[in-house]
Structure formats: C-alpha cells, structure tokens
C-alpha cells in the first residue's frame, strides 16, 4: 500500500509516489508538458483504475486525457466536452471530475461553467442540459478566475443527489439524478461590488471550494470568497464558521477521511493581496466541525505565495496524510495529520491541483 500524488500545474502534470510511511517520495513527469492541468481524478471503481486529467492551453484549448496504467501513458479523448457553435460559449478549462452512480458514468465540470457527463468511462461526453438551461443562467457572471464549475460532490449515500460549486455563482443540488438543480446558497453573502447586500437572488455567491462530510452527508463546508460557511442541512441553510481564522479569504478546504469534525483550511490575507497572511504559510485545522480553527504551523516564514482551490488534499490512510501545493510550485506533506511536515521533492510550476490516491 502506498500513496500516489497527482499534481497538476500550469505547465504539466507530475506524479509523486511513496509507500505507506510517506516519508520518502519519488517524482515522475512532466506529463502533458507545457499544458495546464486543472482537473484530476483517479477512478478506482474498476480493476484497472483510470486517471483523468483536464488539460488545456490558452492557445490550443482544452481536452480530457485518460490513463489506465498509472499515468505512464495517456490517451487524448477525441469526443470530449465541447460546446456547439450555436451556444456561443467557449470551453476554457476542464476543472473537475466525479464518479457517477453507475460504474461507467462520470461527470466533469468546466469553464465557462457547464456540466458534462459520460456513460462510457470518459470516452464520449455530452452536455447536461438541465444545468445549461437553468433559470438563473442569465445571472451567472464570471469572477476573476473565470466562470468555472470547479466542484462536484456526488452524495455519499443518496445516488440521486449531487452538489456542484461554481465560482461567483454558488452551490447547486440535484435530488433527481441531474434532471433539475436548485441553488443552495441561503445564508451565504452574495458578491457585490460595494459589499453592501442588495442582491436578493439565489446565485452570485462566490464559492471557492466545498466539501461534504461523508459520514454525515447533510453536512457541507465551503471556503467562499467572503468567508467560511457550513451547512448542517444539505445546503438548505448556511452559517459562518470562522472563529480563529486570520482572514475570511482563501481557496481550498479539506476534510479528514474519518474524523468527521476535523477540517483543514489554508487562508490567504485578502482578495486584494492573495498571499499567506504576513508571509506565514499556515494550515488551519478545526477539530469541532468548524466551531473554532487553530494553526498547525506556520510551515514556512517569508512565503508570499498561496494555495489554490484544488491545491489541498487528504489521503485515506491512518493516520491521514495531508498535502498541498503552492502557487509558487512547492509541495508540502504531512504523514501524521499535521503534527510534522516536510517539503516534498521538486520545485514545480504554479500548482493548480493536488489529488492523493491510496494505491
């Protein structure tokens, strides 16, 4: 048993591997050299696990890559996500993947925000029209990072339920297998230029990243542009949970794989500065389901980078491993749930995504 870290960067993908002690790491890559790698997903439902990568270029556009040999070789998917000419929409990046309720069903989220599904292990993709034609669609306005559907959470217990998160738009939930979608943003502050709440609609919430408590799937947590929020009722209502944090602003959030009150955040100073507060790279942990947050770190002083929304990952070993990659290309890991940390080998391009896969 060991851990494989899938690391997506602005100029390719790298794979780091270790045994279950997670003390010594080897690195291979880059794969997809020169391409941005946003979405990463290891589908471990089959005997031969498949790795999916959302690969994109400002010049050449995006596509999906698939590997069935642990990332050694890759196949570009010809019939990947795409918009029609008539839609007037542009496919920019492939941000997220998730397993669907049947063995060969997959979802992926893209920018400009849309949801695609595949029913054949990622070989052919089609647009999910129910979200595309959502009544709030005309109110979806991109933020600085674009209009990206970056988070997909199939419910841990109910196969008909799934959540998704769109930057500058918010959280949506389906309870009917994707036939319909309801915005779930009550209690989350809307994004408005002057920060005074006038908007009374259901979207315009800048959700940066969202996680679900798999043991209590009605519990959700999100790092938002304007704070950290939790929901105890499947997204119907949200409340702030920021006690102890140095800032409301940040991108990633992660959950412990078994301890359902333990969460991790890596705040940034502000949306203007977008760097670690006071140059101190610090992970914050909550041991009480977001009631309070405490530092584990700082890990590095004089560090003025940040961690992007998909840059934080947790593995499922015991004790759990925690990993994150910075916007300046450093990778850090802890094999003991944050007690001790090490910088993992390599200096990488801007890290966009880190996924931890137990092998």
């Amino acid at each position, binding site marked *: 048993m060991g851990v494989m870290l899938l690391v997506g960067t602005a100029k390719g993908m790298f794979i780091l591997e270790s045994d279950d002690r997670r003390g010594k790491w080897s690195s291979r890559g880059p794969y997809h050299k020169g391409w941005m790698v946003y979405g990463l997903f290891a589908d471990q439902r089959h005997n031969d696990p498949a790795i999916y990568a959302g690969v994109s270029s400002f010049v050449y556009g995006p596509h999906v890559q698939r590997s069935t040999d642990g990332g050694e070789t890759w196949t570009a998917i010809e019939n990947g996500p795409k*918009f029609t000419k008539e839609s007037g929409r542009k496919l920019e990046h492939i941000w997220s993947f998730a397993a669907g309720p049947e063995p060969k069903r997959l979802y992926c989220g893209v920018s400009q925000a849309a949801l695609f599904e595949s029913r054949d292990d990622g070989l052919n993709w089609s647009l999910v029209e129910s979200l595309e034609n959502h009544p709030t669609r005309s109110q979806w306005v991109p933020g600085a990072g674009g209009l*990206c559907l970056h988070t997909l959470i199939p419910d841990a217990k109910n196969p008909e339920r799934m959540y998704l998160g769109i930057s500058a738009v918010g959280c949506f939930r389906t309870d009917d297998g994707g036939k319909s979608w309801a915005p779930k943003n009550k209690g989350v502050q809307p994004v408005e230029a002057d920060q005074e709440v006038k908007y009374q609609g259901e979207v315009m919430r800048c959700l940066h990243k969202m996680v679900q408590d798999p043991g209590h799937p009605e519990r959700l947590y999100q790092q938002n542009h304007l704070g950290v929020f939790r929901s105890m009722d499947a997204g119907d209502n949200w409340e702030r949970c920021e006690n102890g944090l140095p800032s409301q602003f940040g991108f990633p959030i992660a959950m412990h794989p078994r301890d359902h009150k333990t969460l991790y955040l890596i705040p940034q100073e502000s949306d203007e500065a977008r760097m670690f507060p006071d140059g101190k790279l610090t992970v914050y942990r909550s041991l009480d389901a977001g009631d309070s947050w405490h530092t584990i770190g700082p890990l590095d002083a004089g560090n003025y980078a940040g961690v992007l929304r998909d840059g934080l990952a947790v593995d499922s070993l015991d004790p759990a491993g925690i990993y994150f990659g910075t916007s300046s290309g450093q990778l850090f890991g802890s094999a003991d749930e944050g007690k001790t940390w090490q910088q993992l080998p390599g200096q990488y391009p801007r890290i966009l995504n880190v996924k931890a896969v137990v092998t």
Partner: protein
Amino acid sequence: MTDSVAQVTFSVPRMLVDFTGGQRRFTVDAQTVAGALSAAERAYPMLRVHLFNESGNVREHVQIFVNATDSRELPSFEVPVQDGDEIIVLQAISGGLPPHSWGGGRAAAGGADLN
C-alpha cells in the same frame, strides 16, 4: 480550381505532436487548403479540437500559414494547393495580461489566472 491532387506537407508545433503520432511534419493529399486541413483532421482528429474554436474558426492564438501566407489573408480555404506546398501551424506570439482579464472572467494568454 484544379482537379489535380497535390501532396502537401503539414508542420505542427511541438505542443501538438502527441496528437500527430509524434511527428512534427507529415504529408497529406489534397486539392485545396480546406481539403488539406480536412485530411489532416481525419488522420489526427485532435487537430480539429486544438486548431479550431467552437465557431469553426482558427483559434485566436493559432496561426496557420500556407507557404508564406497567413491563412487569414487568403480569400478562402478553398484555394488550390500544389505539390510541395507547406501548411505550417504556429503558436502566435502573444502574452501579458489584457485588461479584460481582470474581472472580465477571461484568463489572459500567457498570464496567470486568478483562482
């Protein structure tokens, strides 16, 4: 327009060689520029994804030259080709952060997007 089929050399940048069997250069048989592009796409379907946008136009930062002529300056892609002609795909030289990348939701060519 001629009815004769010409052999045209296609040249692609290094970023695209994973989609052309590892080849920087290959030949196709065609009567016109459009025919040469179609033949290249039939042989290597990912070229369709990466050279053309949703509207079917050449992507903004992709340059396709027919010999020394920028394809955007051709009257159409239906112009005939001759034996020995070259179709050269280049990445346009561009960069920086255009003003619309700030708050406009579109990440900048060559720049770092904010996410």
